[in-house]
């Protein structure tokens, strides 16, 4: 029994790690190719033989081989620890992403809450990286990242509350099931739920969640923490080699993770109408990955289209627009929930 537990744990950990790495690599490749085509370029072409599919792997190998430079002025212990903290915060999200009714590493009652809590750990890592680099650009990048993460943690949480009110559970599996069994005025014709119900009912929440995710991920138009034209590379400036790769992977893994959470919360996750639970365990991952891919494409599209906001404009957006709208969304959702 106890052996069984450890074996299962090991397999689950390996799977989580594998999913994260593959997700990150594929989204890196997606970014390379999509951005290239948006800019009328071809993008990577040679690595791997076809379409340059092995480019992210080649990049990874290159990074691993590179010398790690640790400047004299850094606070070495904190500097070395920071990438792990960031990556850990991102990795832990993957534990609760449900790929099918039973395909989840850990089905927590508090799934949503867990995601929000654990993802905030990355902020500490970013601050550690910014401070320990002993570089003013890094410090400013770290501060910007922290200010932005603090500001956008709130709308992110508040946007989720609407979904939680509707679903009546914090479990991610529970939320998917709640969407599958959503009743329109007391009846559940499955064909009505072809469009995920929360996409309609929580459209405002979805928009806020996506915006806040972009800010959490520090992606354009909210990429001030690493704004290369202002702060060189922000808190990443002094990192090189493997540790830089970790930040890099963490960024893309985080993008996939938040896209997965958004798909689960708002797009029905692994669920597909007219398909039994048993079958969903097989095609669920495909469904979820398709939805993730759509959202990741959206993130990439935005990045290559929009310029970057200014830090104060970002804060104004968060505090003056997103948070009040999210609060109003909660009130409206709660009232409607009680009324119907």
């Amino acid at each position: 029994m106890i052996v069984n537990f450890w074996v299962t744990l090991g397999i689950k950990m390996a799977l989580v790690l594998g999913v994260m790495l593959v997700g990150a690599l594929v989204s890196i490749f997606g970014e390379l190719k999509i951005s290239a085509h948006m800019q009328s370029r071809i993008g990577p072409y040679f690595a791997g033989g076809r379409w340059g599919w092995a480019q992210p792997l080649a990049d990874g190998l290159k990074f691993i081989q590179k010398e790690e430079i640790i400047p004299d002025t850094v606070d070495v212990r904190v500097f070395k620890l920071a990438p792990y903290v960031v990556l850990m915060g991102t990795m832990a999200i993957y534990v609760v992403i449900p790929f099918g009714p039973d395909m989840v590493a850990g089905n927590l009652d508090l799934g949503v809450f867990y995601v929000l809590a654990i993802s905030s750990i990355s902020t500490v890592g970013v601050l550690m990286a910014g401070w320990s680099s002993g570089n003013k650009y890094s410090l400013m990048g770290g501060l910007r990242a922290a200010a932005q993460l603090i500001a956008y943690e709130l709308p992110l949480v508040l946007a989720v509350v609407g979904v939680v009110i509707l679903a009546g559970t914090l479990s991610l599996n529970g939320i998917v099931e709640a969407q599958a069994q959503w009743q329109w005025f007391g009846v559940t014709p499955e064909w009505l739920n072809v469009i995920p119900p929360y996409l309609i009912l929580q459209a405002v929440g979805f928009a806020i969640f996506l915006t806040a995710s972009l800010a959490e991920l520090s992606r354009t138009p909210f990429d001030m923490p690493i704004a290369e034209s202002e702060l060189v590379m922000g808190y990443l400036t002094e990192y090189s080699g493997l540790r830089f790769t970790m930040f890099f992977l963490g960024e893309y893994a985080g993008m996939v993770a938040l896209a997965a959470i958004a798909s689960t919360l708002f797009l029905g996750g692994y669920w597909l109408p007219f398909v039994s639970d048993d079958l969903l365990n097989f095609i669920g991952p495909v469904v979820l990955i398709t939805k993730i891919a759509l959202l990741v494409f959206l993130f990439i599209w935005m990045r290559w289209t929009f310029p970057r906001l200014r830090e104060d404009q970002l804060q104004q957006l968060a505090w003056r627009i997103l948070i009040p709208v999210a609060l109003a969304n909660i009130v409206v959702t709660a009232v409607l929930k009680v009324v119907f």
Partner: protein
Amino acid sequence: MGDWLSEVANWWFAAVALAMGYAAYRVVTSANVVHAVLALVATLGGSAVLFLLLGAEFVVWTVVLVYIGAVIVLFLFGIMITRAPLGYEAELDHPPKTKALAAIVAGAMFLLIGWTLVDAFGTEEVTASVTTVGDIGLQLFGRFVLPFEVVSLVLLAALIGGIVLARQDPVDIEDQR
């Protein structure tokens, strides 16, 4: 004692408690303010793990979200934006007399809490029952609704007070725009 040792969870508890103790010690002895805060993160993380061992999942993630995700980040943010020297600060160290006083106070606190716990429970075994969020919600908004609302009012007052203190003269703000 043998019973105690046979339980795996107790080993975990001991390990985490020891680590927490060391981290807490580093919080007060580190002369580098950021290191101190990071040690505090470790301490709080340890307490989260302890709650996890007790099966209080909600408390765990609340500790992580509120303390590590918000309070510590604000701590670090504040430290870095006001003074962020790399390296060590002499002013963080105190003369031996103060240190002794602090040790006495801390020891007294430890004894007081420990004695209270022992006095209250003794050798009685407390069964850890899994509390769900639903239970907590029902308790909060049922039995404890009045304290809950009072606390929220206090927090609101604190919030407004904080804003008033930190606020700059509106004229200044206009000028800066």
